């Protein structure tokens, strides 16, 4: 099909023809077109279906405020739903399709909703989906979910990249219309660092769409020359295709640059979009204004548009929405549309002006004191009904109607920090009001300055004020006519007159809302969903407020307005995520033995950001339990080795180091001798256990503290808080050394024999010289400095040996080599967990943020002879009740039974409910050492209940098992093995 509605002129490049595809048909357009303008040039007005009633819809606007012409752009993994055809820059090979219809766009089966519109009026969901409750899950929710939203996501991973960037400037100018260009030019000539953003791909704003003059030039030429001047300045950064989405604190603005959306595919190495964070001293908002429609019966047909949109299509894009166009207006704006159409040779079917004193014309009919009362045309406008001043009605044929109801300044960013727009009577519109974001001023139409000369003047003045410039620049001549408007919001009468076309909200819905008591603007919005669609009511909010005010017999300022939040226009989640997705969502930390563990075929598990070996399967092992059981038995039987680098390590130095640890640990450290290690329990100030670990005293003034893997960061933060905020003059320094040392646990009866082949002979690690809980700085492998701690999580004779991280890989290989005669076995986190449960050691499952030292069976550790964080509040009555939870062990009466973690304990007989809850299982495993399942649990008054039989229930998994309460120290309770 040829471009039947293409007309002369405009800022499109006719030397190139672009092919594109819409709803499986191929069309042509030119560079400089939007998808909407190209479709109109091809005679296509119908571009989508409305949300609720599936009414046929075409574009209402020519910009980002568009409520109707939403399409799915690009297919496959790059598909992007709900994209406004009015902002999509045309490129060769563009593919798009309409949304929200079953069957072809012209014959939507769901349009049946339109016939039942009386049932779907405001508050429909609230009234209908109330009962019975059982209908929710099976009926209502699926129906709503299917009907909700217009487009659909592809469900595939987005193949493109999105970036984030940071920019700094003296002055940010948002919007490159006459005021923005003038502000940027003034600032640029003064030498300031300027950033100018504009959401359009062509800067100039309305200057590109109007037939007005600036100086001796057309507005569009003046804009192009000014942009060229700015582009040549090194202190100016022009950012077209960039939407400033929000005004944030302290002069930080968010802006989304669409780098590649106008290309078939992003160029190699280029992102699709960039989220810029712009730090600026001063900002001038020159966002212009958005025209608003007048509501009348059936005012939503394809072809009925805003007057400003018709002028954009005709003047800027050389695309006529139709060959015969009527105008409906309440101001001189409509006459501007008619003059432009007439000049382009498009037949003006009539200008319907609600004002009795409307200006006359010799070129076309003007109906003064008249209004449009109805329209016809199933899939596109064919004729309108006009009611004359004398009350007579007749039909006029036209393919498009240009509606001008006045202009709403784009105040959105002024509201982002609680600014509240104020009503301006002479404009019949809201203008920026209240407290604006610090450093932000508003110029041009966004500030209610509606003439071109006024826009140029206010842009220059705002730049002078922002940069403290003394002299105003010379300004070119431009039209300076005052705006004359007679507020008029809707044509009263029967039938449905549309306000919010995207959410299908009509004048009747607003009336219903008022009638049913939803009379504040916030209630109106939520009851009718007015302004809650993706366009956020840019063309509909003020009309809705005006009708509400009319019904309430109040003025519009008395009714008030809702305000706006970021983002200014819909923004893809992908650009907020940037590169932080998939593997790059967070860093992956690998242990020093990772490569070696991979070579052994280890299965890894995420522990915080770390990857740790979970177990090391061997040939023939078909189930993880086989591997884990073997690792436990090999360690307890001879010797095992495990990478424990991930535990947090904090170096504590200074003459007050011991006194400091006395504050952060609830147990005492002052008397710990040099060369000894002690288990330490840290409490929060509220008396709840925070973390546990060991502190090794390497010197009078030097400790090495370990934390659990998960809490390494938060414990370090807490210790810095205690040091700086609570005891600011203690002589103590902290530094995290987690990454500096590779550390391995070597555990089992043969651990010493293995380590004696690692540690240099000058270091005596015999039981007498280096007993349980000893620590020392040593040398190993012939002079390498390292550290040795005789600590045990497994309950075996065990050591942890640390070397500088870069030797970690070499050390694990050496340990495996010298341990080979003892069948040394690497073990992972699962075996580590089994062995600690067998020993009754608490870990993250037990230190779960709700438990006290008393709960953990460590109550006596809390020193009552010194002050430490958490001591005072740990004494609270409620935490020390006689039936407080205590850590116990559980053994199933039937050795074949499992004891699932998370299961709850109930009396052996009696009801199973929350009121009779006795406690819960925190950790559970199969113990290969004992030959049955075991668990650690918290049980009310558990320490006094050893030997009792209880029921373990897990209603979720259908478990009900009888268990015996036993000591949590299942294995070697006297600790003979670890002292061997």
């Amino acid at each position: 099909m040829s471009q039947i509605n293409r007309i002369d002129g405009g800022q499109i490049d006719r030397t190139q023809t672009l092919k594109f595809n819409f709803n499986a048909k191929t069309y042509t357009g030119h560079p400089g077109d939007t998808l909407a303008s190209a479709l109109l040039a091809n005679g296509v007005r119908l571009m989508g279906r409305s949300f609720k009633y599936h009414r046929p819809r075409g574009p209402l606007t020519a910009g980002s405020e568009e409520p109707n012409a939403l399409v799915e752009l690009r297919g496959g993994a790059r598909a992007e739903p709900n994209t406004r055809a009015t902002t999509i820059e045309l490129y060769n090979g563009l593919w798009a399709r309409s949304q929200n219809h079953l069957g072809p766009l012209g014959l939507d089966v769901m349009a049946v909703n339109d016939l039942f519109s009386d049932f779907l009026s405001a508050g429909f969901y609230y009234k209908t989906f109330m009962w019975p409750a059982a209908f929710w899950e099976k009926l209502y929710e699926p129906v709503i979910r299917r009907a909700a939203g217009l487009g659909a996501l592809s469900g595939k991973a987005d193949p493109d990249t999105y970036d984030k960037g940071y920019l700094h400037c003296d002055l940010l100018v948002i919007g490159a219309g006459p005021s923005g260009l003038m502000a940027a030019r003034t600032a640029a000539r003064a030498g300031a660092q300027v950033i100018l953003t504009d959401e359009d791909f062509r800067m100039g704003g309305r200057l590109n769409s109007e037939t007005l003059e600036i100086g001796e030039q057309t507005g569009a030429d003046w804009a192009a020359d000014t942009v060229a001047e700015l582009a040549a300045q090194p202190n100016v950064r022009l950012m077209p295709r960039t939407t400033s989405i929000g005004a944030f604190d302290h002069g930080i603005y968010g802006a989304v640059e669409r780098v590649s959306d106008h290309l078939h595919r992003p160029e190699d190495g280029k992102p699709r979009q960039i989220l810029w964070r712009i730090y600026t001293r001063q900002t001038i908002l020159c966002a212009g204004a958005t025209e608003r429609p007048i509501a009348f019966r059936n005012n939503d047909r394809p072809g009925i548009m805003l007057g400003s949109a018709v002028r954009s299509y005709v003047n800027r894009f050389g695309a006529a929405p139709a060959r015969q166009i009527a105008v409906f207006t309440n101001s001189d704006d409509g006459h501007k549309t008619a003059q432009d159409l007439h000049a382009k040779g498009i037949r003006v079917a009539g200008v319907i002006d609600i004002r009795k004193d409307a200006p006359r014309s010799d070129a076309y009919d003007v109906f003064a004191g008249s209004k449009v009362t109805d329209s016809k045309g199933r899939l596109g406008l064919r004729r309108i009904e006009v009611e004359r001043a004398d009350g007579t009605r007749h039909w006029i044929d036209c393919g498009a109607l240009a509606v001008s109801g006045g202009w709403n300044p784009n105040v959105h960013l002024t509201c982002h920090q609680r600014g509240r727009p104020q009503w301006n009577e002479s404009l019949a519109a809201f203008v920026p009001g209240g407290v604006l974001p610090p450093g932000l001023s508003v110029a041009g139409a966004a500030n209610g300055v509606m003439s071109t000369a006024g826009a140029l003047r206010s842009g220059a003045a705002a730049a002078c004020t922002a940069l403290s410039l003394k002299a105003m620049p010379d300004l070119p001549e431009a039209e300076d006519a005052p705006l004359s408007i007679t507020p008029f919001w809707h044509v009263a009468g029967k039938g449905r007159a549309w306000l919010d076309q995207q959410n299908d909200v009509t004048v009747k819905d607003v009336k219903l809302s008022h009638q049913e008591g939803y009379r504040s603007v916030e209630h109106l919005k939520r009851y009718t969903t007015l302004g809650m669609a993706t366009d956020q009511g840019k063309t509909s909010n003020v009309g809705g407020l005006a009708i509400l005010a009319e019904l309430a017999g109040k003025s519009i300022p008395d009714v008030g307005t809702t305000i706006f939040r970021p983002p200014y226009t819909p923004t893809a989640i992908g650009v907020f995520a940037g590169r932080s997705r998939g593997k790059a969502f967070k860093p992956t930390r690998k242990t020093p033995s990772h490569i070696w563990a991979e070579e052994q075929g280890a299965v890894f598990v995420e522990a915080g950001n770390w990857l740790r070996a979970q177990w090391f399967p061997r040939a023939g092992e078909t189930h993880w339990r086989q591997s884990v059981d073997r690792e436990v038995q090999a360690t307890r039987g001879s010797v095992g080795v495990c990478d424990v680098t991930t535990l947090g390590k904090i170096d504590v130095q200074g003459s007050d180091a011991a006194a400091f640890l006395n504050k952060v640990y609830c147990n005492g450290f002052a008397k710990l001798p040099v060369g000894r290690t002690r288990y330490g329990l840290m409490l929060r100030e509220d008396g709840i256990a925070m973390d546990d670990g060991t502190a090794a005293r390497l010197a009078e003034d030097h400790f090495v503290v370990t934390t659990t893997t998960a809490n390494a960061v938060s414990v370090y933060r807490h210790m810095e808080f205690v040091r700086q905020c609570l005891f600011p003059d203690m002589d103590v320094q902290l530094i995290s050394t987690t990454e500096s040392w590779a550390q391995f646990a070597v555990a089992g009866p043969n651990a010493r024999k293995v380590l004696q082949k690692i540690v240099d002979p000058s270091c005596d690690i015999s039981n007498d010289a280096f007993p349980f809980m000893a620590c020392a700085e040593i040398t190993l492998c012939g002079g390498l400095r390292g550290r040795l701690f005789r600590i045990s999580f497994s309950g075996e004779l065990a050591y942890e040996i640390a070397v500088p991280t870069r030797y970690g890989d070499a050390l694990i290989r050496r340990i495996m080599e010298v341990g080979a005669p003892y069948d040394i076995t690497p073990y992972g986190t699962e075996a580590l967990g089994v062995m600690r449960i067998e020993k009754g050691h608490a870990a993250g499952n037990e230190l779960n943020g709700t438990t006290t030292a008393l709960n953990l069976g460590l109550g006596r550790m809390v020193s009552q002879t010194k002050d430490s964080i958490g001591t005072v509040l740990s004494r609270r009555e409620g935490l020390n009740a006689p039936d407080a939870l205590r850590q116990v062990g559980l053994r199933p009466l039937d050795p074949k039974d499992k004891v699932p973690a998370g299961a709850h304990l109930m009396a052996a007989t009696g009801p199973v409910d929350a009121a009779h809850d006795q406690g819960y299982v925190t950790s559970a495993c199969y113990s290969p050492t004992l030959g049955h399942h075991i668990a650690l649990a918290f049980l009310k008054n558990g320490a006094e209940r050893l030997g009792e039989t209880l029921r373990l229930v897990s209603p979720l998994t259908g478990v009900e098992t009888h268990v015996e309460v036993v000591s949590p120290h299942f294995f070697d309770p006297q600790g003979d093995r670890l002292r061997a």
Partner: protein
Amino acid sequence: MIINHPLLGPRDASEFTYLGDAALIDRPDPDTATAARDFYEYQYLRDNPAGTLRELWYHEAGDRAWLVVTRNTLTHEITHVELARDVARKAGRST
């Protein structure tokens, strides 16, 4: 937001971790007869003013300094930034 670090100059808020009311510096004396009550109030009772609040921020992705930031909770305006350590010293916590 931008926090003007007393040693490092203006830094983006994303480098910091937030804790809360700077009253947490005023940890009560544990050795008085009213310690239980004092610690309860210290731990659980906080003012939540619509206006100026002194609060603790930690420069976790920076120099690890705890800062006392005076911020207006309505406007987010930051009027004063001090090293928490200096505040603690002034509050007599040196002993």
